């Protein structure tokens, strides 16, 4: 409320518009944003466009794209609508990507911040803990976790979050270590502010830019991880996902190419869009590091 009261000043609008212009200067990022918005729209409208369950058999199996009206992407090995599967799969991919990223931020940011700010033995303990996770290949760990806890949307999200937080912790730790030596932090200590207040109100807001950029790329990685898990048959058996579609049709790739091709393109395009957005965010948030404009 108080924010809204302050808003009429021109300066309040300046930074947002400014940010948008810097972001929009990167054409690739704009394209990425458009693609992502399209994917989000498909995910939201999936139940409207394809009210039936994507698991339902609607036609003869192995129908090629455009062979039968109403099935633009054909049917799969059991006669299910591929287009419907793609639309419902978009939901799963986005949910898994976003939620698991949020969870890994929730683990990585506090750990990294504490390690960086307090240093010494706290830092040592937390970083050894982090390294423990880093020494295990993330994908192998994710497989083990999902296998132990039974494949379900929850366990997949949890497994992805557990394997992807260490880089966040490392990044936040490095940012905090460099920020805590700044004079404004010393001034805050002299003003008698508590450690928690300094860390949360003074340091972390200044470390947000790289965290946001990293998060956007982590969503992409999470989508890939989920697809890989589903491909291996470790997906939630009740949910249609892109990785599952590719995995289920890999045996017929020579006879029915479209079954693995379209979900593959969907993954590629979505991940590419997220990477483009990440790069645009990086340009917009770190204007001084942005590649030189011509």
């Amino acid at each position, binding site marked *: 409320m108080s924010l809204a009261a302050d808003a009429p000043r021109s300066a309040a609008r300046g930074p947002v518009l400014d940010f948008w212009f810097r972001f929009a200067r990167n054409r690739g990022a704009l394209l990425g944003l458009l693609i992502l918005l399209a994917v989000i729209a498909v995910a939201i409208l999936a139940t409207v466009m394809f009210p039936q369950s994507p698991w339902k058999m609607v036609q003869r199996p192995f129908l090629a794209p455009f062979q039968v009206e109403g099935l633009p992407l054909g049917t799969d090995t059991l006669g299910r609508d591929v287009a419907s599967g793609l639309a419902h799969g978009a939901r799963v991919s986005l949910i898994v990507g976003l939620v698991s990223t949020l969870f890994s931020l929730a683990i990585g940011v506090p750990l990294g911040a504490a390690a960086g700010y307090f240093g010494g033995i706290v830092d040592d303990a937390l970083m050894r803990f982090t390294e423990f996770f880093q020494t295990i290949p993330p994908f192998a760990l994710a497989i083990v976790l999902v296998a132990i806890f039974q494949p379900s949307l929850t366990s997949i999200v949890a497994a992805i979050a557990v394997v992807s937080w260490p880089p966040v912790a490392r990044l936040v730790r490095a940012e905090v270590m460099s920020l805590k030596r700044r004079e404004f932090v010393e001034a805050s200590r002299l003003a008698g502010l508590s450690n928690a207040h300094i860390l949360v109100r003074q340091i972390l807001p*200044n470390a947000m830019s790289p965290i946001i950029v990293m998060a956007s790329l982590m969503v992409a990685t999470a989508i890939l991880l989920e697809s890989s898990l589903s491909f291996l048959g470790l997906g939630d058996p009740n949910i249609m996902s892109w990785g599952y579609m590719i995995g289920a049709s890999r045996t017929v790739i020579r006879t029915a190419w479209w079954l693995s091709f379209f979900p593959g393109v969907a993954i590629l395009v979505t991940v590419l869009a997220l990477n483009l957005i990440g790069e645009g965010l990086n340009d917009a948030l770190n204007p001084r590091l942005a590649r030189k*404009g011509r």
Partner: protein
Amino acid sequence: MSVLAIRDLAIRLPRGADRAYAVDGISFDLAAGEILCVVGESGSGKSMAANAIMGLLPDLVRVERGTATFEGRDLLALPERAKQAIRGDRIAMIFQEPMTALNPLMRIGEQIAEVFEAHGKLSPRERRERAVALAAEVGLPDPAAIVHSYPFQLSGGQRQRAMIAMALALEPSILIADEPTTALDVTTQAQILDLIRNLQHRHGMAVMFITHDFGVVAEIATRVIVMRHGEIVEEGERETVLNAPQHDYTKRLLAAVPSDVVPTAGAVRDTPMLEVQHLRKTYTTGGGLFAKPRVTHAVDDVSFAIAKGEVLGLVGESGSGKSTVGRCLVRLVEPDGGSVTIDGEEITSLDAAGLRRARRRAQMVFQDPYASLNPRTKIARAIAQGPIAAGTPRREAMADARRLLETVGLDASAADRYPHEFSGGQRQRIGIARALAMRPELIIADEAVSALDVSIQAQVLELLRDLKDRFGLSILFITHDLRVAAQLCDRIAVMQKGRLVEIGKVADVFLNPQDDYTKRLLAAVPGATWTGALESA
């Protein structure tokens, strides 16, 4: 005879800059064998002009019109390849920060030899020999050995000498020096100025020397150009400009230069505000299984006291430990030994809660006005957060913050803005307001005016003096600049390599220094003779 003729040079800044032109239609000549000082405050366009001549303008900044005639050709119109051939060969440049201007991974000798290589001159063997000869000429100690060292192994002054050796390698007819001594200590600065003057004389080069410091101008210039907002406001011989300036701006700049005229020190009261005894801080770096750790005595048995309402100047060169002393007093750095009492309360043994209370009485003003304010916190909040944490109701603290902004000479409306909307001098005022918000009795000002232009510096010093009188503050004023210290302080303490070598009344230290080091420090202050001349006039 003019070697370089600049005519109607205009450099366009990108949209969104604070003005349209960095340099707006300036013309001047650089004559053979002269040292032309280009003086101006930050943002006056002096460095942009030099960079345009060298063809080193940043992206998005471009020359809009004008010519720079050198050896019959217009430098600004030459293709990049031709510019490259001239750079380093016919026109050389040295920069402010020799550490960043040298390649950290290349030995000094290789970097000097590389200049010949870049221009395809001499055989590799001759290049190496010339590198050693050049190192000797610029006065690097043990030239045959030092060419094998890396930049980080040299001191700041030695690095600048190496840069000068590179610049001299091909006997250029013009040397452009962009604030080459600004990052150096005053004794080193004196040596480098001496070296540049000698080399200029020996090689008959023309030197374009960019500086903000009138002391340096007095020391080295033949002719002076004063720049402001991208225009030349005054041009003339050194004596004329320094002693009989015509333009108002030059007069104001000169008036703002801290002079040697020592103000009468206020009577020192006896009640001590701060007492420091046998303070000690040792840093141990490195040291592993096989390496011997390096031990630095940053503060070595330092004792002094500050009375209520007194300003003590703590003066020393970089690395003398003066900042460490300041930070030890409020335990931003934990001292290793000794005692610090603020108004009778021992600081070194306090626990966290006690320290928080005690710190309210001793606040700090920091050097870098850009790093000392959180870029994402509004001014009012930055000032009020201390009092709020100490229990003052929020509304009251915010109102107090606005009043304080007016106290330090800013508009109360500044409270709702972010730090990036303010200039360096304004930010320093905000930093002072933040310190005052805690109603301290002692202020530690760590190089508080060093990053500011001289006219702004004078204003901030005036503000500190005024506040001291109004609130009866004690101030520990840490600085590397003896003249600035003399403007504000009642007493001066001189530090060298972690030890306090001299302490006394300002007039005594200045007119009758006891310690050898203090004498050297005073002798090295640039322009010492000039201000002397002014005084007697």
